[in-house]
């Protein structure tokens, strides 16, 4: 009894927090999504699927999010994996901590400021000016999907590097010796041993980046300039500008639903790839 009481006490603060700040608002959003917009903006209680039927109106935001979020995740992984591999397997242990800190340092600066930097780099006076000066003609980078993708990968790379690094770092290097001893050349050892055993880290990194990207708002707002916008931007617009709370709620519910479905599918896929091991940690 004593034990159960202390368990409840331990869980109470977090439980209360989540109930009030997460579950309750989510319930509101769900209820709102079946409502209607008041003429002057705001919410009128109702029970209608009207808002959901209206979703195709925001198709562009869904399309952008559902292409750029996975693309950004994959691109981050492709860049982060070799970096994490180098840090964990090749870098001199003397320098390893230093290099890891360098990966994390950008996190110490606000993403807002860093995105401003990218506005200048990708803007008319930045890279395009350089390309033009070199005689390759004029290009436009800012406010394109490329700019948003660049910002995304730049911003989220550390989130991908760290879990992959941890899984590679934890990998028992003697397994690679055993693999070589059994006749596997380095590439085969990587494909058959290192890669499968680093999958939990890859899964964690992809999950972190993907989930955050699905709700991303700031980077598309700054580097997409209203031309390349995500669902996050659409939500801000719906709730704060057009004050169409009911429709905004329907979009938000749809976003949460999509995320739940993708994450569940992804986790079951990873579990299968991980050979149904119980100790594969996904998060």
């Amino acid at each position, binding site marked *: 009894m004593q034990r159960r009481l202390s368990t409840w006490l331990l869980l109470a603060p977090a439980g209360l927090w989540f109930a009030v700040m997460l579950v309750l608002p989510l319930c509101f959003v769900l209820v709102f999504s079946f409502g209607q917009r008041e003429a002057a903006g705001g919410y009128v209680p109702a029970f209608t699927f009207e808002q959901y039927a209206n979703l195709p109106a925001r198709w562009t935001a869904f399309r952008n999010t559902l292409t750029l979020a996975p693309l950004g995740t994959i691109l981050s992984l492709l860049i982060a994996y070799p970096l994490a591999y180098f840090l964990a397997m090749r870098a001199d242990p003397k320098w390893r901590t230093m290099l890891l800190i360098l990966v994390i340092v950008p996190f110490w600066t606000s993403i807002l400021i860093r995105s401003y930097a990218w506005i200048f780099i990708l803007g008319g006076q930045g890279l395009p000016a350089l390309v033009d000066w070199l005689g390759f003609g004029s290009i436009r980078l800012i406010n394109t999907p490329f700019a948003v993708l660049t910002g995304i990968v730049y911003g989220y790379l550390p989130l991908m590097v760290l879990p992959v690094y941890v899984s590679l770092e934890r990998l*028992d290097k003697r397994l690679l010796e055993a693999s070589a*001893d059994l006749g596997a050349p380095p590439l085969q050892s990587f494909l058959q041993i290192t890669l*499968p055993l680093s999958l939990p880290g890859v899964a964690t990194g992809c999950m972190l980046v993907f989930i955050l990207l699905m709700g991303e708002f700031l980077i598309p707002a700054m580097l997409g300039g209203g031309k390349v916008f995500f669902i996050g931007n659409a939500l801000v617009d719906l709730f704060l500008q057009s004050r169409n709370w009911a429709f905004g709620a329907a979009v938000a519910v749809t976003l949460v639903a999509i995320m739940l479905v993708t994450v569940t599918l992804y986790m079951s896929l990873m579990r299968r790839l991980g*050979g149904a091991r119980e100790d594969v940690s996904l998060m």
Partner: protein
Amino acid sequence: MQSPFNEIDPGARDSNSLIAEFREATKRYGDVLAADALSFGIRRGEFLSFLGPSGCGKTTALRMLAGFEVPTSGIVLLDGQRVNEVPAYRRPVNMVFQHYALFPHLSVAENIAYGLLQRRPRPDRADVARKVDRALEMVRLPGFGPRRIWEMSGGQQQRVALARAIVNEPKLLLLDEPLAALDRKLRREMQIELQTLQRQLGITFVLVTHDQEEALSMSDRICIMRGGKIVQSGSPNALYDEPISRYVADFVGKSNFIEGVFSHGPDGTGRILTPSGQLFEGRVSQPLAPNAKASLSIRPEQIELTHVSRGGAEQVTVINRIFLGEHTEYLVRHAALGDLLVLVARQAEASEGGFAPGDTAFIGWAKSTALILVQD
């Protein structure tokens, strides 16, 4: 120190009977000499052990054979071919790793098949499955193929590691402290199994261990290593009975040492004069200079423990008694010589009667069983 080939009879020196050979093989890590001009041949089909404390170079020697270390200078030969720079994955050599290094994401069968599946052209699936099954039977784990590694006990994992190596029919099977992680009873079992397996397969086994009991019980031949060099090599019996130095006598089996100054005695025997002024005689097997510091080595089972003094016996006090089943181990204290170990066989104890701590007793030994050794 011995000449490189003194343990190899002339007929064995031609490369046909040697499966592997070190010639002046040296491995240096910065200032540390891990292997110091090792010259040594491994005979086809033998069970050889490198025995020594940690840091003696035994693991480096093994890793040079496996291909994980490239010698700084000198040559490593495998089946007559120089293999210094040949990477591990191209050597027909397999290793059983200290902590098994089994692949956690693969099943038992997949682990064992791993080596076979690296071969090009790829071997036939059915053939691989058959070989895996046979290997599992050999290590007495039939039917364990589909299991996951973490479902297996330590002893079972050890067997899987063994099966994973022998299934490839390597020219050399390297064992790096393979039994260190097992409990005593299991270790004993595995020692017998390893020995049987080695005879069945006819594969040359090279074992690295710091456990003298392990080396003594399994090997045809043992190399005692120290500071990157082979101090002495020979059969377990030879090393036990004729150690060339105090270091070897201390490492192979237990021994009592009486320190002193050497002088020659009659008929090739020698004498040790202890600081307390006592003179002890013993055999001399290695040349020793007069007045050199030396140790008289007497094995615990060579000492006779009696209640009454017989000629030339030394008086001691019994300190401790440990019953070991067929033997009883006594720790006795001598006023000048310090503490000595005495191993009394059950029968002898039965006829002489036991001793209790605090008892006064007498120890004596045949002069021929005492060996005067260099202090190194």
